[in-house]
């Protein structure tokens, strides 16, 4: 029983990260209907930014989170404005596919050139601190990260639901033409959403540095899981992505616990394909 509880908690803690990544991906998809294939690399950039800020300015990794969010927002906005917005006009899906995939490769190779292939960590005074809560063991950095990302998720829900900008984002995502008719500047919303999505990935990266190693391809495993989360949670749905992320994390640990750790990836991907196919069948039947 205690092992089961422990596995649940582990799944929850890592699932939070899949949620954050999936929500970032879905904010972008909802508005622009593009899959951001460099989402994982944005997480990696967030990690290296945290590394730079904490080594050069002596900041605690968690104190870097707001700074990383702002910088990543600016980076995303820049990429959107200079590269993606012009490509959106071509209405070509392949163009954007190659653009985001290429951007991902560019970023991970750039990191390789700038930082080398070494695996780094940011040691803190509390990185080796562990808490025991009844039958469950927790590492302090994982707990803090989870707390922060829950706060961020709630803030994101509130932002989209109650603020004018949030409402504009939702309006563009539901009906871009209608939104423009009522006077919403779609281009501004595009910049805002891509910046927001990138910032969410960057924040996930910053929160990971507390207990994960930093290396140029660190983002790919998380980026891939973000895609699964998006598919399982529903394209464009923010709450869907949140719960799908937690579900994925718990699924991974449960499969490992009850079947075998060797099969956890396999079963996750099979589930992914099954959900994809079943959903497609349901949609066809409804029509």
């Amino acid at each position, binding site marked *: 029983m205690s*092992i089961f509880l*422990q*596995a649940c908690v*582990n799944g929850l*803690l*890592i699932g939070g*990260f899949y949620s954050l990544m999936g929500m970032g991906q879905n904010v972008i998809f909802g508005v622009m209907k593009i899959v951001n294939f460099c989402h994982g690399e944005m997480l990696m950039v967030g990690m290296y930014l945290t590394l730079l800020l904490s080594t050069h300015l002596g900041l605690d990794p968690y104190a870097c989170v707001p700074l990383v969010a702002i910088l990543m927002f600016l980076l995303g906005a820049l990429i959107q404005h200079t590269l993606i917005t012009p490509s959106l006009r071509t209405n070509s899906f392949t163009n954007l596919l190659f653009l985001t995939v290429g951007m991902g490769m560019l970023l991970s190779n750039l990191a390789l050139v700038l930082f080398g292939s*070494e*695996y*780094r*960590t940011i*040691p803190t005074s509390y990185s*080796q601190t*562990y808490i*025991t809560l009844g039958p469950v*063991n*927790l*590492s302090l950095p*994982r707990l803090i990260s989870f707390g922060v990302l829950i706060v961020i998720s709630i803030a994101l829900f509130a932002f989209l639901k109650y603020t004018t900008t949030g409402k504009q984002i939702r309006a563009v995502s539901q009906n871009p033409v209608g939104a423009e008719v009522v006077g919403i500047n779609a281009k501004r919303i595009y910049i805002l959403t891509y910046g927001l999505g990138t910032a969410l990935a960057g924040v996930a990266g910053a929160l990971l540095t507390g*207990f*994960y*190693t930093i*290396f140029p*391809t*660190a983002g*790919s*495993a*998380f980026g891939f*899981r973000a895609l699964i989360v998006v598919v399982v949670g529903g394209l464009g749905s923010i709450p869907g992505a949140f719960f799908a992320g937690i579900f994925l*994390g718990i699924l*991974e*640990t449960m*499969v*490992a*616990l009850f079947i*075998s*750790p*060797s099969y*956890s*990836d396999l079963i996750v991907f099979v589930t992914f394909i099954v959900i994809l196919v079943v959903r497609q069948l349901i949609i066809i039947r409804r029509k």
Partner: protein
Amino acid sequence: MKKLIAILSVLAMLLALFTVPTMAEEGPIRIGTIYAMSGGNAAIGENILRGIDFAVAEINAKGGVNGRQLEVVRGDHAGDPAQGRSEAERLITQEHVDVMMGCHMSVVTEVVAQVCTQYGVPMITAISTLDKLSDPDHEAMDYFFRLCPLNSVYVEDMLKYLKDSSEQTGEEIKTIAIFTDRAAIGQELIRCVELYKDEYGFDLVATVDYSSNATDLSAQVLALKQANPDAVLCDSYIGDATLFVQTLKAQGFTPKMIVAKANGFTDPAFLTNLGDAANGVASVVEFNPDLINGQEINEEFKAEYGVNMNGHSAESYTVVWIFKTAIEAAGTTDGAAVRDAIAALDIQGEFPGGRKIVLPYDRIKFENYDLAGVPHYRDNTSASVAIAQVQGGEWKTVWPFSFTDTKILYPAPLQ
């Protein structure tokens, strides 16, 4: 006329080929080396070549071999078997090397060994550990010898260490588990543990694997925790090795012993990343600066190159000394004679006119033997590795007991 020139030039080339061996008994003795000096593995090549240069300088200062100086001719395989083959042919036919050393990737070593056998040039590999290089498929490569232990010997030594540890800890290790990467390195560890576990009386209670650069290893560690083995054997790349040790602590599971098959665990970043949290983790090493026979040479090596000697430099250093001893025994650099001298060599404790063997064993003899029912050819059967353990944030040799004064830290504190 053209025909005549063609015939003459062919004759001239043949003549050149035949005249070389008679000239070769004068001037320096040439050692060909084929390692990666460019590409992603260049750093490994550099350590190997340092070991070779260090031995050559030492031997030349003492008057060389049979009164002749040693000279190193370097080839670069850049990690590519095809380039390894062309470099081997270049070194043999154009540079006229007398003996060959290489390589650091077993696939390249295999190709180069075939070329050497074809031309009758004796070759010793210092560091290629793949078992099959000396298996029955390679019986005919009779100019090729291997100094280093085989992959399966690495694993057997890990088990021997667990067995011997009770002498110091007073507690017997009975159950073991494997934690490893799903890639080829992991399969190799699993295969070798299966091969030897019964012989050493261990009960394998869990085999846990994961894919490289995992996002999370807590499920794997929980599986280990459920099986609750006395010792965990592992092989991981550096990112996963770091995450593994952190996750062990986070999940509140500290096995009494953790023994790694080098790789990510001996990467310098492992200690930088984990600091004291790595205390108690043990790993296979081919050489460690605190080995009783290695301390002196390491001082001199460090004074020369500014870095510690590592396993690769120590092994390649030793190979140069083997060539020296064999050529002196043969009294010539003729390929077949040197090959026979290497095969007959039996070095016990120290090289004639040289140091004690700097590696964690005290005999070098190339033999044909049976390994788990499969015949193997021309391996150094006395070769073994040492086990080092992180103590106070540093790697300290703890096994074989006769090569160190440091005692095992037990159970592994991980803090």
